[in-house]
């Protein structure tokens, strides 16, 4: 029978809120909940205000936006390619973004120019794969996937080359960009806005995605204009991924595992899955980032390590239970 949408989304929304509260309240410097509250209402000491409002809050919001963007992009990719193993990076988007960012670093640029370059690189990768996989009729998922995998490998080779020839001074910066780090994202508003926008778009689009997931011929027979819809999904997924990678580098695992886990628990209605991905992906990354920056403080772990450590056992457990 049709599963109700309101209950799971409410639960996830509460989880998101809780995770953000935890993230803002926890850090390598101990600040009591009462003190955090006083900061939020306008009081608190200068140090506490700096820590909460200028370090933790932007970082929390950025982590939420990045996690949500990646999870939704992963879910869209899985529908587009009709393959539950697809993730946002499978078509070479993160590779293109990385090449863009590294190129900017090599040219001596910094800050916003590196981000802009990363975004441009990601969109270039999108256009490339789209153009190369073009054929008659709708894209076959296997053709798109093969093209994307090959292009991604190509980007990987370019990245390796850039790392090999770059002067030693640039190397640490490049490596840390590649590993992904939420702390670098300072302005989460673009990411959050895009996430909200895409979730809204999904409401009228969701059922069409359900039908498309049954196959392009079947979808066409049921009244879907397959080619324009596939194109739209591709552009949306690319935009989401490019934004996420620009904000925080390539953080792996979230885009693959979150849609999967949600599907095991909530079924296959994209109208539920996509907003749920936004909330669950955001929650996961916020919690992972909180752990990454506190668990062995002052050492800071790359957040991708934590998402894997959290995600893998959870996923295996859900898979086992669903059998």
């Amino acid at each position, binding site marked *: 029978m049709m599963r109700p949408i309101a209950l799971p989304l409410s639960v996830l929304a509460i989880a998101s809120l809780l995770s953000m509260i935890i993230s803002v309240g926890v850090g390598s410097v101990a600040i009591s909940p009462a003190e955090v509250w006083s900061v939020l209402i306008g009081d608190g000491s200068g*140090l506490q205000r700096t820590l909460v409002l200028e*370090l933790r809050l932007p970082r929390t919001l950025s982590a939420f936006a990045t996690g949500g963007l990646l999870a939704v992009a992963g879910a869209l990719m899985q529908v587009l390619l009709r393959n539950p193993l697809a993730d946002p990076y499978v078509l070479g988007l993160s590779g293109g973004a990385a090449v863009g960012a590294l190129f900017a670093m090599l040219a001596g640029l910094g800050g916003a120019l590196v981000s802009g370059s990363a975004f441009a690189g990601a969109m270039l990768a999108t256009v490339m794969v789209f153009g190369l996989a073009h054929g008659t009729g709708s894209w076959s998922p296997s053709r798109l996937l093969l093209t994307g995998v090959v292009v991604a490998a190509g980007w990987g080779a370019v990245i390796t080359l850039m790392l090999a020839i770059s*002067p030693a*001074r*640039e190397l*640490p910066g490049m490596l840390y960009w590649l590993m992904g780090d939420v702390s670098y994202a300072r302005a989460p508003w673009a990411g959050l806005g895009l996430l909200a926008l895409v979730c809204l778009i999904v409401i009228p689009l969701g059922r069409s995605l359900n039908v498309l997931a049954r196959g392009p011929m079947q979808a066409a027979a049921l009244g879907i204009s397959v080619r324009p819809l596939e194109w739209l999904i591709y552009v949306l997924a690319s935009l989401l991924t490019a934004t996420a990678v620009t904000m925080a580098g390539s953080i792996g695992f979230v885009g693959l595992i979150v849609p999967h886990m949600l599907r095991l628990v909530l079924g296959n209605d994209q109208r539920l899955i996509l907003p749920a991905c936004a909330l669950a992906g955001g929650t996961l990354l916020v919690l992972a980032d909180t752990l990454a920056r506190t668990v062995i403080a*002052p050492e800071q772990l790359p957040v991708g390590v934590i998402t894997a450590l959290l995600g893998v056992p959870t996923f295996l457990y859900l898979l086992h239970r669903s059998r």
Partner: protein
Amino acid sequence: MIKLKVLAVMLGWMLLVPPGLAAPVCATDDLEVEVCLDHPAKRIAALSPGATELVWAAGAGDQVVAVVAFSDYPPAAKNVTSVGSHTRMDMERLLQLQPDLVIGWVTGNPSEQMAILKEMGMPVFSIEPRSFEAVSHTIERISVLAGTESAGYTEAERFRQGISTLKAQYDSADPVRVFYQVWDEPLMTVNGEHLIGEMIELCGGDNVFGSLARLVPRISAEAVVAANPEAILAGGMGEENRHWLTRWTAFPTLAATTQNNLFFIPPSLVQRPTPRMLEGTRLFCEKLEVARDRRS
């Protein structure tokens, strides 16, 4: 009449203010940024092991409140709170220590995190000495910002004198062809522009890879054999890396092998651009002397 009264009041104020009370200190860092503080820094954060050594050399060790991982010299630095790896620092812990001056490393710290500090109005002084003179100059600049000029300038001068003495001592020495091995796998060396390259030159050494374009080039073992250096010196992470040298014994035609000029210098004395390089350079020059003696 009124103007005269105003002038008198102003003169009076100027006489009342004690001299040097709000004396700002300024210095220009290695990124060409001028950093000015209202008063000498009392809480310094040193964000690289090299910076830590240089701050202590400037006489400001007591004013250091934060260091990063691997800040192991001088031993007193080990007691200072660490804020994590210099490539990914714990910003909360750093801010909690409320530094009034941050000494960063140009190529060591991630620009994003430094940007965050600058956005918050934190004075950030980025250094990275690339020559012997720069080492002294850096110590002097830090001492100005820390208000420890007398100790800092003294130490800088000591270093300068030491280097120029060594320079004079080995000025007319016979050149010895040297290969300096920075790392084993991959095989890396330094070119003439690197500080270690300057050290080699000072001791009368001829860096066989001095003319390469990159500062820290990757080379092959064949290139080393082809260059046929007379002496091979190895440095690296950790104090016991002698196995790096034993690989060269597999090439019996290599001049360094036949003369047994496979030397090892504790890396902590040459790999950080700090006053300890004086000791390292002295050792290096002595090794080259040994190589010269073995020629006959």
